[in-house]
Structure formats: C-alpha cells, structure tokens
C-alpha cells in the first residue's frame, strides 16, 4: 500500500503510529530527523546539549566551591579566575563551535549542484499553503500537501501573497520565512518515502495555529506518476 493510500484511509491513525512515546520522536520532531539537513542539525544539537550539560555542571561546582570552600578556590588568583574562566574557556569552546556550525551551514544551503535539484514552489497565504511543480510537464498544484521524491534534494522556493509566514518541516530541515516581495529557497531531502508534518512557524494572524501542511515523500516512480496526472487522486 502506498503512503498516499495509507494516509487517505486513516490519516490520524497513521500519524499517531508515528508518534512513538519516546521523548524525542514525533511527527514534527526536529530530533527525529528523516533527511540529511535535519540529521546533521540534530547531531549538532546533541553535541551542544552534552557540552552544555558538562559546562553547567562545571559552573555549579565552581560556584559551590567558591562559596563553600573559599580556602581552596582562592588558590587561584582573581586574575586567573577571570582570564581562564571568562576569556580562555568560552573563547576556546565558541571558536570550535562556530567553525563547526559554519561548515555545517555551508553544506545545508541551497548552493548550485552539478545535477540541478528538483524545484517546487510553496506559496503561503492566510492560512493555507499551495504547492506548484514547475519542473513537471503538466501544470499541477496541490493544497496543503507537498509531493516530493524521496532520496534526492529538492529546492523549495517559498513566497507569500499576504503577510509573513514561515515554511518548516522539522523532520527534514530548518525553516525559511515567506516574506512579501521576496523569494527564499530552502533545500530539503527525505531519505525514505513517508509522511512528514509541516507547520507555519511565523505568527501570521488569527489562523496561525491552524496552518499545517504535509510533505509526502514518494518512491521516484510513484512521484513521477503523480506528476503525470494522478495528483487529483492523491489529494482526495
């Protein structure tokens, strides 16, 4: 049974089955990545989380030491406390982190590829998303459901017809704002076929809470079939 068919038959049950009761997974969880951008960001998060845990523990120990055992803590001069704690330690940690984040960010942005990725267009308006497929031979359009092929990068051009919205599919990658008069591009990739939830992340008025959409990642052949005309059926 295809993903689309499963979603059509019992959409809530299908989404719910994805909601495993473990802490980090969920249909919209950035910590349950399903594509390279989200996966490397999640890795970055776990590294930073562990680092932050160590650092906050260290700080707690240092404050406790200074308060409870000033005799020991005063073995270091005030000058070395300030220089090593205030300058050297954060300087070292931040430099390493900034370089890692910069390299990671460079890999994630929609830079030109040898094989140009598939392009789709997401247009936001209060309070729906419509998706167009300029690369497809037929003029196709889908509302609140974005079809993409799995296993390859897709460049989503995000625009708006009214206020600012933000296009976010947490399990596939970071968000990008839809801003009047501007065209922004975000590169996403789903590693496997599946259903991925998306939301509007920028406050956009009375219907902001109710502006979700779904990304359906298909096997390439299935995607091609949909582009060839089955889209109406998939939407129903």
């Amino acid at each position, binding site marked *: 049974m295809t993903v689309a068919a499963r979603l059509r038959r019992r959409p809530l049950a299908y989404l719910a089955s994805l909601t495993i009761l473990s802490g980090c997974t969920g249909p919209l969880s950035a910590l349950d990545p399903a594509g390279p951008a989200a996966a490397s960001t999640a890795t*970055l998060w776990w590294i930073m989380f562990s680092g*932050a845990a160590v650092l906050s523990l260290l700080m707690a120990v240092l404050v406790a030491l200074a308060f409870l055992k000033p005799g020991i803590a005063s073995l270091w001069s005030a000058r070395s406390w300030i220089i090593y704690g*205030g300058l050297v330690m954060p300087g070292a940690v931040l430099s390493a982190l900034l370089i890692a984040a910069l390299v990671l*960010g460079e890999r994630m942005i929609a830079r030109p590829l040898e094989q140009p990725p598939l392009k789709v267009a997401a247009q936001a308006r209060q309070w729906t998303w419509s998706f167009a497929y300029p690369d497809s031979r037929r003029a196709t359009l889908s509302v609140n459901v974005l079809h993409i092929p799995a296993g390859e990068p897709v460049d989503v051009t995000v625009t708006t017809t009214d206020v600012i919205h*933000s296009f976010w599919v947490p399990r596939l990658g970071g968000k990008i704002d839809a801003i*009047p008069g*501007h065209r*922004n591009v975000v590169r996403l990739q789903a590693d496997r076929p599946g259903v991925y939830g998306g939301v509007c992340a920028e*406050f956009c008025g009375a219907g902001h809470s109710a502006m*979700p959409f779904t990304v359906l990642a298909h096997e390439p052949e299935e995607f091609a079939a949909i582009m060839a005309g089955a889209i109406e059926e998939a939407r129903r």
Partner: protein
Amino acid sequence: MSGRVATPLRLHRQLNEIWASGRGVKRLAAVNHSVIGTRFMITALIFFGIGGLLAMLIRAQLATSRSAFIGPDLYNQVFTMHGTIMMFLFAIPMFEGMAIYLLPKLLGTRDLAFPRLGAFGYWCYLFGGAILIAAMLAGAAPDSGWFMYTPLSSSAFTPGVNADVWLLGITFVEISAVTAAVELVVSILKIRAPGMSLNRMPIFGWYVLVTAGMMVLGFPPLILGSILLELERAFDLPFFDTARGGDALLWQHLFWLFGHPEVYIIFLPAAGAVSTILPVFAQRELTGYRAVVVALVALAFLSFGLWVHHMFAVGIPHMALAFFSAASAAVTIPTAVQIFAWIATLAHGRPRFDIPMLWIFGFLFVFILGGLTGVMLAMVPFNWQAHDTQFVTAHLHYVLVGGFIFPLVAALYYWLPHIRGRVPAFRLSMPAFWLVFIGFNVTFFMMHLTGLRGMPRRVGTYPVEAGWDWLNLISSIGGFILTMGFALIVVDVFLQVRYGRRFRRNPWKARTLEWAQPIPPPAYNFASLPWITRRADTLEPASIGPELAAGHGYLGFARNGWMETLGVDITSGRMEHVIVLPRQTYLPFWTALAVAAFVLSFLFSYYWFSLLPLGIAFILLLCWTRVTGLDRDNGPVVIGREEIAPLHYETHRPPSWWGMIIALIADAAFYGSLVFSPLFLWLTAPAWPPSQTLKSGMVVPALLVATLAAAPLCARRAVALNAKSRSPVLWLAATAILQFASLILLVILMRTGLPAPTVHAYNATSFALLAYSVLHTFLAAVFSLFGLWRVWAGYVSARRSLDLRIATPLHDYTAITGFAGIGLVLLLPTLITAGEAFR
C-alpha cells in the same frame, strides 16, 4: 547667608522644608528622585502582575491540545500584551525606577540632574501604559505580537485600532525611557560626590551608565520604526508596503536594532545589582573591577552588532549570517568575565549566606542555562530549526527571568530595609524562593524539548497527534507553582514593610554610601555631601553617616530655599560647581497630560485636532524655563569645608549643556536609522527604482544650503559678542530669521519638487527626511527666539551665557542633518540611475 549649623535635627528640618514633596494633591508636583523612582517601581510591579495574569491565561490555554478556553482573536491579544507589558511596561521602567531611586544615594548626592524631566517621564509612562491597559479591557488590545511585524500589523491586515494602540502607546512610554536615559547619563557623568572619580564610582554606577548609554542609542530606531509604521497606517506612506517600494524587512531591522540591545538593557542593571550585592555577602570588594567595566563596554558594543540573529530565517546570505552568529556567540565572553569576577569575589572573600544570596544563586543557575541555550541559538543551522519555536520561548525566559527577575528579587530583599527602614520578621522568603525556582524550571525546562519536538511559538491550539500534551501540561502546572511563589513574595514584602523589625543603620554591613544615610532616607538624601578619597564600595558608612548628618560635609546648610547639590568634573570627580535644581512643580504633569491628549486624538484619527494638544504641550514645555536662571551675576558661593564654587548658571558646561549633547546623540541615532531606511529599501526592496524622483532645479537647494550654513555662524557670532559684554541681539535675530527661511525653503522643496509621498517609498522616505529637517529648523529657531527673550529679560550676561550657548550644538546639528538630508534626497535619484546601469 549659610548660617551656622546647630544640630543635625535642626539641619534636617531646614532641608526637609526645601526638599520634601507635598502631600495630597501636591504630590502631583513631586520631582524628588526617591518619590519618582518609587513610583516607577510600584507602577512597574503592578504591570508585572497584569502581565503575569496574562501568562496564566496563556498557560491555561496551552495546558491541553485543542483547547477551547480562549479563541484565537483573544489569545493573540493576550500573548501580544504579555510580551509588550513585560518588556515595555515592566522591565525597562523597573530598571529606570531602580536607577532613579538608587543612583544619587550611591553617588553621594541629593538628586538627579533633571528632576522635572524624571517626573515628566513617569507621567508619560503611566499614561501610555494606561492607554494600553484600557484598550485591552475594551477588547481592542494590540494583537500582532509584541514585535509587530509588518504587513500583519499594517492597515491591510489589522484594520482596527489595535496596532495603533501599540504604536502610539508604546512610543508614548518610550519618551520616558529616553528622558530617563538622558537624565541618568548626565547625572552619572556630572553629579557625584566630590572626589568620586569615574574609577572610584560604585560598580552599579558603571552598569547604569552603560545601560543608559545603550538606551540613548537603542530606543531611537524603535521610535523611528513606530512613527514610520504609524505614518503608513494613518496617512498611507508606503515605508513597508512591498508593492510600493517598501519592505517588511525594514521594520524587522529597525525593530531588532532596538530589540536586541533591549535584552542587555534589561540584563545589565540586574547584573549591576548582583555586582553590588554579592561582594557585601562575600565580605570583600568586587574583584576585577576594571575587567568588569571593560566587559560592560564590550557587551554594549557587541549588543548593537547582533540584531540579525533574530532574522536568521528571512533569507539573508549564509556568510553574512556567520558574522552575526559569531558576534552573538562573542557576547558570551564579557558575560563570562562578569560571572568569573563574581566567583573570584566569593573565592577571595569570606562568603556568608542570607536571603539575597539565595536569589543570586538562583540567578546564576537559571541565567547560565539561558546563556548556554543562547549560544546554541547563535549557531545558524540549529537556529533554523529552533527559531520561532517553544525552544526560544524557553530560552528567553531563562535569560530574562533568570537575568532580571532573580537579581531583582535579590535587590528587593537587599534594599527594602533601606527603603522602609525595616528588616524581615518572618522567613517566608525561603519557601517563596523554592516555589519560584522550582515553578520556573518546571515551566520552562521541558519547554526546550516541546520546541524541538516542533511546537511553534504563538499557537493557541495544537493537535493531539503532535504529542505535545504532556509537555505542555507540565509547563502549565509549573506556571501555577511559579505564580504561587510570586504571590508569597508579595505577602512577605507586605509583612516586612508593615511588621518588620526596625533597625538603626546598615543591616548588611555594606560599604557603599546609601547605607550612610538616615533610614528611611530623607528627601534631601544627605544633610551634607561626602567627599570621597577611595573606591566608593570600600567606605565606612558607620563613621561617615553621623558626620554628614551633623553637616560636616559640603552644602550642610539651607540657603535661599534653593535645592542645591554639587557638580563635578566628568572623569576626575573634582568639585566644579553648585547646581541649583528646580523646585516642585505641576508642569511635568500638565505637559504629560497634554501629550496624552495628543496621543488619544491621534489614536481616534482626529489628526487635525491633535495639533491643538501638541501645541499646548509645546507651550507648556517652554514654560519650564521660566523658573530657571538668574537675573544678575552672582559670583562664587560658599559650599562648606572652607571652599567656594560658582553656581551652575555661571559655569561653562553644567549638566543642562551635557543634557543637550546626550539628547542630540539620541536624535542622531534616530536620524541615522531614518537615513538607513531609503538606502536599505533601494538595495533590497523589490519595487525599485521609483517611477518619479525629486525635481527641484538648483536654486532652492543652493539657497537652503546657504541659509542652513549661515544660521550656526550667526549664532556663534552672538555667543562671541555676548562673551565680550556686547549685545548679541542682532545676530540672534539673524539666526532665527535664517532658520525660518530654511524652514520655508524646505517646505517649498517638499511642495514643488517632491512627487506625492503616498506613491512610492522613495517619495515617502524623502518626505520624512525633509520633514525631519523642517522640524529641526523650527526647534532651532525657537531656541534662537528663546535666547532673544532671555537676553531681553536680563537672564544673560557675559558670565551667565548658558542660555545662548546651550543652543549652539542644536544649531550645528540642524545644519549638518539638513545638509545630509538634502544631499541624500538629491543624490539618491542619481545613485539609483547609476545602480541600474551597473546592474
């Protein structure tokens, strides 16, 4: 004239007669910094209560999925008002109140530089806040988020009065922020105890100086943005309308150019309280005083270079983001320097425990976690995921509640004995702390995970399938525990103020000057002013206090019913002059009321009528000058300790002159943001170039340049003649005439050369630039006429020349911004054409 000092009690009676604020209705005339500061703090705490109740509504709504507690329209008002109140009506005014109340006491003086301005600021704050709350009760509160992003806040998508309430009400409140900032900067620089050089100043003075300096530069971009957006809403000038050459991103840049320094403006004073309180309980002075000062200045600089980290997802090129990412991470360093200075102070002291320390530990724990998530958010790829989710909500509460509320409560418990003269009889503060600490972490710790699991900010309902129910329920339960903690603090403070044990002096054995005062503090602060010979956080209040009360310091007498304090050299703290402060007056109250009438008539779209209260406010402001000045030369006066000093009217650069300079710096920040706007739009907005540009010929601009340039030269000539005891009248009149001529020429340029401002953002920004110069030539001309009047009324002589000299910086500024404005308006079309050719 000074009279021999008899007893401390008699001296107290004489000074109190002069300084004390009246009771009953006369209270409206109070200008005393203790009264104004207390008012600010109490009003801010009331707004904190209102903001907290709104937070409870939010948590009630979000406790379960598909909640039907409040609908989206109301919910949007609730969260918008929660943010707006906490930022603009609580945090900033709370800082202002704390600084206004404490500074003169810490610096060993009797009042701040501009007492009436402080009173005026308070009324603006109160009336502006009242307008917002009234709108909320009427169901017309702002509902576009506290950040008011266009175009959601534009008239197309918010046609009602809601957004206008925000723009006008908050701008009204911001008057108080800017007046307080100017007052605080000048007071710290010029009004300290003699001998208190900058490097002897209590560290809190440095924190407030840096914070107030940031406010001078940080608030003008927001005020400009609000005015531009209100002009767009009221008169259809398209600054932010993409279809007509505007850009929604312009608003975001202006807002965050203010909005990020704002976070540090909130955090720094609280850190200043920690740097003051923690050494008292470490029983040694702060270590690394210089390092902390350098860190503060570095933090202030950096904080203006990282506003874009609120805009990582708007489509700015990644390499540009990397710069702002690095700057955002770099602010960690000056913050870490402070934290390690505190740790080193504890390590090298003999730390002891008391309730304020408990709150400082809470602060360190919570704030460090907030700082760590701040570093995470500064990393661009992670920010793309976490931005605009509950993760950020959690982060900002860790930073702001950790960085402001916890130190604030420490400060409250530390200084409450000073304010009311009582120490606590009960120990409710202990359970209150644990309720707040546990409640806070329960509310916000798991919220990080809620965000990473995909819950965006500002949603009022969410589907059960998303799996956020249990996380939100935990947060909501924590929120109610937190509220109970705050309620218990209120009870505890009430008990302490009402039933606390009385004490004589200095319960904490602190070593700063405020504890050398009689407690509760009298209106004049010190019966005589101290002289400082070492760092002012290593003093002995126990011995200084009685000496000052007996009148052995400076100005230990009552003279002519004058409110006197001393002005010092900025860096060395060398005694310079006697400042005679203005007495109690109703003028600030009436002026603020007139401004409130202007705001309300504008709010209800009576644009022409609104000019009437605006004119009244302006005339009332002019009336402020009636009681200042001397109509004859006075010469130096006795100040005690066998020294003499001139009165400030007869010195070169008294506080009012510096007030003009600082006000012009704020004005320049405003103008800089205004100049930024057309350049930014030209480079990024889609609908450029404009179809029509300015057509002026060269005659009017050439004449304008001539009149603008000539006015300050004439004004300088007038000052020079006056210095030689010759009449400056003719040259002053010439200055005024030239300035009115510039004004008329500017209007001609706008009317004949400029295409309709509603057509394109180019026209609208050009219009705004020229209108700015119209306003300034008018102000400068008023100052010239004021000088004429003062000469005519006999307030000016070769020795008393301030009334003429104070306008010189304004004249120069008007000419310079005039040139810049005309130059930009004339050159932009050429630049645009050249840019198009280049493309």
